[in-house]
């Protein structure tokens, strides 16, 4: 990391009460990101990526208990009052969720939603807000933007909805954009365009960006740093080239192997990681990856590995039997 952190997440844990007992969705995560930088967070379904982003945004479910600090631009968001938070979320902190319907209101037209956001946070009059809305929709690649203003979210295809959500998120020039699986539902050419669009806007605004994804392909070319999460914890963290060239965690290796390769034959069974992540209401005593890890040994079952520094700068991993350093996976 270069420069002072715009956002620093310090020892954040999220606990959710469930009928089956306490569920620790995020387990003591430390992360930071500077202005103009891009951090990728990758990990398996249910590992806590969305809960972590909601913890940063203070948008956790009501019953959730959050510990730790979320320092943004010098203030702890955990302790900020609701009104100041709401203002901050509209302006400085923006988010694009995995499911665009989460950020879009189904009963309002696209136009109303964009125009209201712009009017509220940028204090534009209605004519200026409408003009800006059309520009924003065109910028995110929506054909016939003027007509789309009159449409409701359900009348758009999934990809179009995500573009609209991105347009709304970018509309107030945020300092930090959290994109939770922003292109997961989109095809490759549009994915490339949207990631380019985000990169372009980021450079232009010197905006910091957190891209949450399960696709190592997406983080490979487009992030400065990557954090790999498993069962609520960050298990490996490194500058992007280092992560791919000198990965130390068996989990990172397995994740890379499970990607369908374009040069493989059809109907080849994929090297899926066997089993499932542990039930988060029944945390394991040892390494949470141990039931699925082909390198696990006795120590892994009884002790939890902490994040250790690797030889290369900025690289950390949590594993008792790391892959050999310097051996490309």
């Amino acid at each position, binding site marked *: 990391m270069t420069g002072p952190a715009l956002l620093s997440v310090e020892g954040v844990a999220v606990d959710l009460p469930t009928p089956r007992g306490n569920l620790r969705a995020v387990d003591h995560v430390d992360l930071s990101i500077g202005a103009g930088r891009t951090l990728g967070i990758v990990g398996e379904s249910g590992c806590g990526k969305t809960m972590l982003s909601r913890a940063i945004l203070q948008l956790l479910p009501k019953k959730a208990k959050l510990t730790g600090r979320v320092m943004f631009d010098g203030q702890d968001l955990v302790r900020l009052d609701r009104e100041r938070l709401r203002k901050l979320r509209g302006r400085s902190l923006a988010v694009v969720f995995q499911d665009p319907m989460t950020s879009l209101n189904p009963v309002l037209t696209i136009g109303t939603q964009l125009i209201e956001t712009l009017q509220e946070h940028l204090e534009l009059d209605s004519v200026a807000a409408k003009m800006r809305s059309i520009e924003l929709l065109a910028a995110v690649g929506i054909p016939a933007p003027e007509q789309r203003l009159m449409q409701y979210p359900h009348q758009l295809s999934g990809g*179009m909805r995500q573009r609209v959500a991105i347009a709304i998120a970018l509309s107030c020039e945020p300092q930090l954009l959290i994109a939770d699986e922003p292109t997961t539902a989109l095809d490759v050419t549009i994915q490339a365009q949207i990631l380019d669009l985000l990169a372009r806007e980021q450079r232009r605004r010197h905006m910091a960006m957190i891209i949450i994804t399960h696709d190592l*392909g997406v983080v490979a070319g487009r992030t400065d740093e990557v954090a790999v999460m498993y069962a609520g914890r960050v298990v490996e963290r490194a500058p992007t080239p280092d992560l791919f060239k000198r990965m130390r965690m068996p989990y990172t290796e397995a994740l890379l192997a499970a990607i369908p390769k*374009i040069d*493989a034959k059809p109907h080849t069974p994929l090297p899926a990681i066997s089993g499932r992540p542990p039930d988060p209401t029944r945390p394991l005593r040892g390494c949470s990856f141990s039931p699925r890890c082909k390198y696990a040994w006795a120590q892994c079952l009884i002790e939890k590995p902490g994040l250790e520094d690797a030889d290369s700068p900025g690289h950390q991993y949590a594993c008792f039997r790391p892959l050999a350093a310097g051996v490309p996976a």
Partner: protein
Amino acid sequence: MMQPVSQPASADPLLRVENLVVEYPLGNKTVHAVSSVSLDIARGETLGLVGESGCGKSTLGRAVMQLRRPVSGKVLFDGQDLTAMQGDTLRRMRRRVQLIFQDPIASLNPRRRIGDIIAEPLVISGVKDAKKREQLVHDVLGAVGLDPQLVTGRLPHEFSGGQCQRICIARALVLNPEFIICDEPVSALDVSIRAQILNLLEEMKARYGLTLLFIAHDLAVVKAVSDRVAVMYLGRLCEVGPSEQLFAQPAHPYTALLIEAIPVPDPDVRPAESVAVGEPPSPIAPPSGCRFRTRCPRADQRCRDEVPELREVAPAQFAACHHPLIGPA
């Protein structure tokens, strides 16, 4: 009289789509979502369908099921035209065809327990014996790799994306259908779960003797499960052919573009700077002639004037292009 189909008729197609046209009214205009698409799917085959966001893949799937009535064209399922069916006859046929949606979380009723969600198709189709329903739900949950004991009593929001998709697959399988339309079944899932679900779909296909229409935007994913792949662009079919052959030697410039845009999990491979140039055209006013011509490097006057018909460019490989990358010019 049967309409001429511009592809080889497989000897015994389970599904044949002939010159299907689906439109949506939009104000005083029309969205040309699917324009004269013809397809065959042989019994036991998996046909992959790829294409850009908004190109009409889901609309095609919904029109096959008659959830959206086509403007014209036929959908022959096991020889019978679904477009001519109404009421009970259609409902009975529909039981043999199931749909798995793009968004697993949104397609589950948030207020109902998983056991009831999966039993619902059984209730609707008249399985009155509650014990029998329970048994079938139990079996199908086991088949998709979920523990019935842990799952049936819980609500959808307690599950992550991958688990919700397993639940959706279980719900689709419980009536023992012959044909399943999988609309982006793994798009919202991370790689390791994606690999598991793809392996699961392949297993279920063998176990239940299924025929699949597999819609996705990820080419590597489509290739992993499909015998043949069809590529759509802006409501029209561009190319269809055996998977490996299509990827090794794409004939349509759009297919080639899609293959180039796949993000590679290697930080040394710089992502191609938004390969698809220009705005995607609007399906409200699609370009004349070839609909891809506004973004195609090979476009010329003929592409503007004449709609290219699907023709054979290599054995069993068909492309709708005046200047294909392979085959006779």
